[in-house]
């Protein structure tokens, strides 16, 4: 007898992929008490950073803070493993201050793996998932390449770039994921069989160069901040102090551009070998040179991959040109004349889904209990992936519990903007978060992510009582200080005017309130300390918010009013079973769009391209009549 025995397991939640989305998703589900299994093609690739060696950056930093505020892991993990930290845009308005940290890649991955391994209810399994099991449009589990069945009440797809992955440079291509990791070649078909629409996207990465072959003396050093801000609200700056490592700035030049132009016909992108759509935010260097022909030079950032290695990441020069061209191109750059390439730059193509097939909960509309998070949904970036991961993890649990899903709206967080954009508007390129995508960004600051989302994280169950009480206390302190400052009256006298003169601002003839003075461009909370006798020393995370709330009060109030208008439309729910063909008076295009996207509220419907204000009026009237 040689009967193959089919092995079966039972889980609550199965997470396919252990990248940045998969880690957050599986941690959230397991921490909420549900038996969870997370699959990875290689145990060594958990939370791997196959591209840039940093976390955060403009608007992405906001996402990290928000994930942390909800009770996610990414912020804590980068705080453990960063080697340089910088607040971008610090000279600009508070809405666009963005935190970015260089990571030690190996350490980042190892620490996250440790966290996963030590989380109760969570099993890691190295295996390729080849099939989704469904029954009457309800997900039942997954099957691995060995034929083992993992039954699960909810399944979260976090496949990253691995679905039918293909790495390409010049005329060389291989059907693998990053770093030669095996691709998942079967799962796409299973998704198609389940009625899911698949599309092909592409992204790319630059070469890595041996540090010993780089001449840093001709480059500009890029140091980290002296006063660092932690990503996680659970850390104080003093908790994470460490020696920082520098990045370096150099530039492309005319020779570089010549080399690229001469060889452009050998680029798989321009030769048409690559079919997938690439991101506009991170174009390859060949794309930059061809599209912005009048630019004389492009900035190149040389960033360490970590403390464990000599490999340096060549930021700004992602490429899929042939190897010989890559050598010539990199070596034409000041400081890289003798560069030794450790890994080639390459483009990678992969299957992903049209995210308009998802609900705002990230559950597939046509398959109950199946969720998607990360690059499979058409996004790009570690932070974007992690943000969707935690939401999908929470909502898988909500699904099992038969509860209303967690939906963060556009006025509550960048996470909400990200998911609403993907699900409602769709995307034709790998979607990157940008501050310009957030309408209410003055309210969605990185400094107040906890104010916005920690109560939600607490309600969900990912924020401990201890952390929540600390948070409440912080909010109390902030509010009390704002109240106090509002009442402080500053006399017009010599002493006051001496302070004002020192700060290069106009003196006063009559007394005024302290908050009016803080609003002046030359002044801030800190600088007015001598005018505020009662003030006690408070933590920076407190004073920062006090200052923002006072200084930008007018704008903040305006945005709050805009949000009120927005919320009114969001709260007008559209029933799941609405038949748009029966509404009447809707334009054909609108019927099609509404029927395929099936928005959950009037607000969401109004953001669908092709649905006009007239159609929205018709819908409102129709719903009222129901």
């Amino acid at each position, binding site marked *: 007898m040689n009967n193959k025995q089919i092995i079966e397991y039972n889980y609550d939640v199965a997470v396919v992929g252990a990248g940045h989305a998969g880690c957050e998703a599986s941690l959230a589900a397991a921490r909420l008490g549900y038996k969870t299994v997370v699959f990875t093609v290689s145990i060594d690739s958990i939370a791997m950073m196959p591209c*840039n060696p940093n976390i955060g950056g*403009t*608007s992405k930093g906001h996402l990290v803070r928000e994930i942390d505020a909800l009770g996610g892991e990414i912020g804590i993990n980068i705080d453990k493993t960063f080697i340089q930290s910088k607040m*971008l*845009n610090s*000279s*600009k*308005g*508070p*809405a*666009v201050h963005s935190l970015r940290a260089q990571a030690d890649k190996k350490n980042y991955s190892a620490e996250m793996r440790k966290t996963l391994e030590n989380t109760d209810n969570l099993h890691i399994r190295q295996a390729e998932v080849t099939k989704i099991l469904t029954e009457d449009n309800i997900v039942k589990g997954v099957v691995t390449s060995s034929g083992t069945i993992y039954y699960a009440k909810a399944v979260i797809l976090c496949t990253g770039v691995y679905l039918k992955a293909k790495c390409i440079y010049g005329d060389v291509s291989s059907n693998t994921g990053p770093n030669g990791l095996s691709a998942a070649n079967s799962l796409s078909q299973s998704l198609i069989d389940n009625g899911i629409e698949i599309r092909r996207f592409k992204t790319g990465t630059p070469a890595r160069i041996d540090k010993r072959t780089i001449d840093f003396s001709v480059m500009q050093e890029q140091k980290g901040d002296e006063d660092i801000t932690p990503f996680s609200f659970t850390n104080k700056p003093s908790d994470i102090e460490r020696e920082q490592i520098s990045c370096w700035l150099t530039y492309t030049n005319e020779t570089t551009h010549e080399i690229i132009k001469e060889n452009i016909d050998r680029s798989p992108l321009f030769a048409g070998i690559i079919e997938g759509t690439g*991101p*506009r*935010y*991170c*174009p390859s260097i060949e794309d*930059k040179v061809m*599209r*912005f022909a009048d*630019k004389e030079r*492009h*900035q190149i*950032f040389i960033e360490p991959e970590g403390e464990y290695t000599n490999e340096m990441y060549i*930021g*700004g020069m*992602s490429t899929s040109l042939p190897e010989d061209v890559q050598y010539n191109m990199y070596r034409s750059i000041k400081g890289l004349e003798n560069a030794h390439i450790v890994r080639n730059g390459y483009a990678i193509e992969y299957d992903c889904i049209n995210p308009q097939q998802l609900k705002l909960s990230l559950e597939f509309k046509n398959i109950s209990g199946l969720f998607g998070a990360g690059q499979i949904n058409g996004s790009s970036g570690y932070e974007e992936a992690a943000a969707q991961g935690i939401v999908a993890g929470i909502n898988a649990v909500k699904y099992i519990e038969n509860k209303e899903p967690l939906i963060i709206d556009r006025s509550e967080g960048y996470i909400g903007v990200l998911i609403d954009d993907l699900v409602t*508007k769709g995307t034709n390129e790998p979607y*990157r978060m*940008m*501050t*310009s*995508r957030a309408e209410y*960004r*003055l309210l969605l600051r990185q400094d107040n992510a906890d104010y916005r989302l920690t109560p939600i994280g607490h309600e969900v169950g990912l924020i401990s009582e201890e952390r929540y009480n600390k948070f409440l206390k912080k909010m109390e302190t902030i509010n009390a200080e704002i109240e106090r400052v509002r009442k402080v009256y500053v006399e017009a006298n010599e002493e006051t005017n001496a302070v004002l003169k020192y700060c290069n601002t106009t003196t006063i003839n009559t007394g005024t309130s302290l908050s009016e003075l803080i609003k002046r*461009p030359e002044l801030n909370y800190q600088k007015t300390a001598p005018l505020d006798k009662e003030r006690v020393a408070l933590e920076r995370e407190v004073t920062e918010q006090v200052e923002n709330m006072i200084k*930008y009060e007018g*704008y903040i109030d*305006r*945005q709050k009013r805009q949000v009120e*208008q927005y919320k*009114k*439309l969001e709260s007008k729910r559209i029933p799941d079973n609405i038949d748009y063909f029966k509404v*009447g*008076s809707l334009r054909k295009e609108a019927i099609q769009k509404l029927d395929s996207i099936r928005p959950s509220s*009037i607000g969401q419907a109004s953001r669908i*391209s092709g649905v*006009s*204000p*007239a159609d*929205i*009026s*018709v819908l*409102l*009237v*129709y719903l*009222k*009549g129901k």
Partner: protein
Amino acid sequence: MHNTETITALCTSFGNAGIHIIRISGDKAFYVIGKIFKKGKSQKTFDVNKYDSHTIHYGYIFDGNKCIDEVMVSIYKAPNSYTKEDVIEINCHGGSFVARNIIMLITKFDVRMAEPGEFSKRAFLNGRIDLSQAEAIMDVIKSQNDYALKSSVGHLRGDIKTSIEGIRENILNEMAFIEASLDDPEHYELKDYGNILYEKIMPEIGKLEKLSKSYKEGRIISEGINTVIIGKPNVGKSSFLNYLLNENKAIVTDIPGTTRDIIEYSINIGNMCLNLIDTAGIHKTEDYIEKIGIEKTLESINKAQLIICIFDMSREFDEEDEYVLSQIKGRNSIVLLNKSDKKCNIDLNRLKDNNIDYIAFSTKTGEGFDLFTDKLENMFYSDIIDVENEIFITNVRHAEAINNAVQSLKLVIDNILNKMPEDLLIIDMMDAYNSLGEITGDTVGEQLIDKIFAEFCMGK
């Protein structure tokens, strides 16, 4: 949708009806009427709370200290109104001029123009209209929205569209640059951008203000200039009128005027239209009936946009002429010396001493008519508008949108001067961009993101 916003619109058809009704609906309706309406002859401040619903009140609409019209105001308190919201209806005098002025005044108080069919829509949404009417109303909303779209896009003169689109594009370019530098600070430097932005925004404000001014001009073009002809009896008022009628294929009308005067004739002269108001001649009299007529004339003179003042050149200047002359002091007027074909007996120095320009005119030979037309054009179009080549705004909604855009851009300027960070300036720039989009019919979409990527090389 803006269901809580207060809205206003003319409820009677635009045109020269004898009376117009303007409706205001929403939370602010009572507040607004309190601001613009003075009750009774004594012009007392009006507080709606003191009066019952469904009452009607006599008084005047004021724009600051300026009286716009004598009106009747009806109060409907929620929910006992058409829309089930607080509603005010103003009955004002006919002619679109007064009505538009009142509507423009109302919209200064954070009240916006109603969408076509919006009162009915609110009535329905607030449960005022029963279900059987729903279908019909949806069709109305739809067709009216289509119409609104057409009138905002299709009916827009091509050059207005081009001009507004140009201004929008300039605002978009600035926003795209700022956003690019916010999203990619390592590649795009914003340092001291405030000064540059100031220089870029100021001309756009100038262009918009010019368009806004052209609204007044445009209104003159579309509605005509209310004109009175004065002079003592027998100086040739009738022959001048007949001359205009014969020469200009006038449309003789009996359109009720804006002031309960009768506009007898609407005459196109050059690019303009004169609405001629019939008046009695001015002269000294003891006759009671005649006195009433003359008083009425003087009232008309006060309300007219143009006074054409006629003297007989062949006769000497007398006391009555003197009196007529005194009526035009400080007013928009053209002095015609009729009968230039006869011997001049008038003392021209009298006019010159008073700095009065005159045109010698003959209804017999037509002498002076060209001068008259030129003078007219100079007066009403000044340097602001060249009807053939310049663009002008005639639609009240467009004028409102332009004014909003100007307000937003002025806030941008204020905040540049206050050294506010650039990311906050975007909020007002976006408002201006959206206001102008209401005119061109463009809704907000992905233009900003697309522009950023089209113009700037982003990311590592």
